[in-house]
């Protein structure tokens, strides 16, 4: 066998690894042997014939992979669904998608940081949807969808995807009764108006921003003081 044919055989062996295990265990060795024999036989007819056979084998392999994976899935029951189960399956994904979309919208405006109940409520809704559909569609599939949903929500919560989230966390640490200096210490890394630390506006307020960007990010954190004590904390999203 030529070096080229040996390389083709090695590549074929690797590609066979993509078949479902049951099929691979039953026919993998035989398929490799037949492929090697086919190459041996074809090599005598020149490189063009060798390439033609290789192309045909790759095409057959691709079709076979799709067919066997589909068969394996159907055997596990994932694709062997009734029409009602298909509808429920689609509705589940849609509900998770809508819930996730709603959550990310709330997250965008900082609501989930200010009101942790929103995160808890979203997760409870997701769990309820997951539990409701578990009986109707293959359990494994609904559990995977649910796990992905919960993971996505947790990631959304944990990752600071813009400067608004750390800003809100800092603003959340400001409590009524704090001194101006304490608030300035917490909000030290943010823009302040009036700019000089310790000073307040004529209305007795200090306003903080996390970015000098314009539209869409011009959120304000407004802290109102009575004397030098905090009495009110507001987040005004853009």
């Amino acid at each position: 066998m030529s070096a080229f044919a040996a390389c083709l055989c090695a590549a074929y062996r690797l590609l066979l690894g993509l078949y479902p295990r049951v099929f691979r265990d039953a026919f993998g060795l035989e398929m490799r042997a037949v492929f090697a024999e086919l190459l041996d036989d074809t090599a005598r007819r020149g490189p063009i014939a060798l390439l033609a056979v290789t192309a045909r084998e790759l095409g057959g392999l691709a079709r076979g992979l799709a067919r066997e994976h589909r068969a394996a899935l159907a055997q596990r029951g994932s694709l062997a669904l009734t029409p009602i189960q298909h509808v429920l399956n689609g509705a589940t994904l849609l509900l998770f998608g809508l819930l996730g979309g709603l959550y990310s919208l709330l997250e965008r405006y900082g609501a989930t940081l200010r009101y942790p109940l929103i995160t808890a409520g979203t997760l409870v809704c997701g769990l309820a949807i997951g539990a409701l559909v578990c009986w109707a569609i293959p359990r494994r599939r609904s559990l995977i969808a649910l796990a992905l949903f919960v993971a996505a929500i947790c990631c959304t919560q944990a990752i600071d995807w813009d400067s608004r989230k750390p800003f809100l966390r800092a603003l959340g640490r400001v409590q009524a009764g704090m001194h101006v200096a304490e608030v300035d210490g917490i909000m030290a890394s943010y823009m302040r108006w009036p700019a000089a630390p310790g000073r307040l506006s004529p209305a007795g307020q200090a306003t903080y921003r996390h970015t000098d960007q314009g539209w869409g990010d011009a959120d304000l954190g407004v802290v109102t003081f009575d004397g030098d004590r905090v009495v009110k904390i507001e987040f005004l999203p853009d």
Partner: protein
Amino acid sequence: MPDTPGRLLDEPLSEATFFILLSLAPAPSHGYAIIKNVQRLSDQRVLLSTGTLYGAIKRMLELDWIVRVGDPAPDDTTRTPKTYALSDLGRRVLAAETSRLRALLRVAERYAEELP
């Protein structure tokens, strides 16, 4: 009397399946020999790839149309090629399909004779 197609088959056999069954009719055969036989029987028209062949073999084993003969013992590590043979059911399926094709051919020939 061969079985009618309706009794054995839900739908006509694919050409590849038909030729694989046909190639196994005279004697049991192994994978590479089946590919070559199918080429010869179809006048080089049906060129099976290894993936197509073993996909078809798997389905036909599941349907009990063919059987593995001389299946090696689990501890057998030799690379003796596995051979496949038509089962009784496979023979009947092949006969039914042949009968269906023959009937089709008769209709086509009769129609051709009536053409001006």
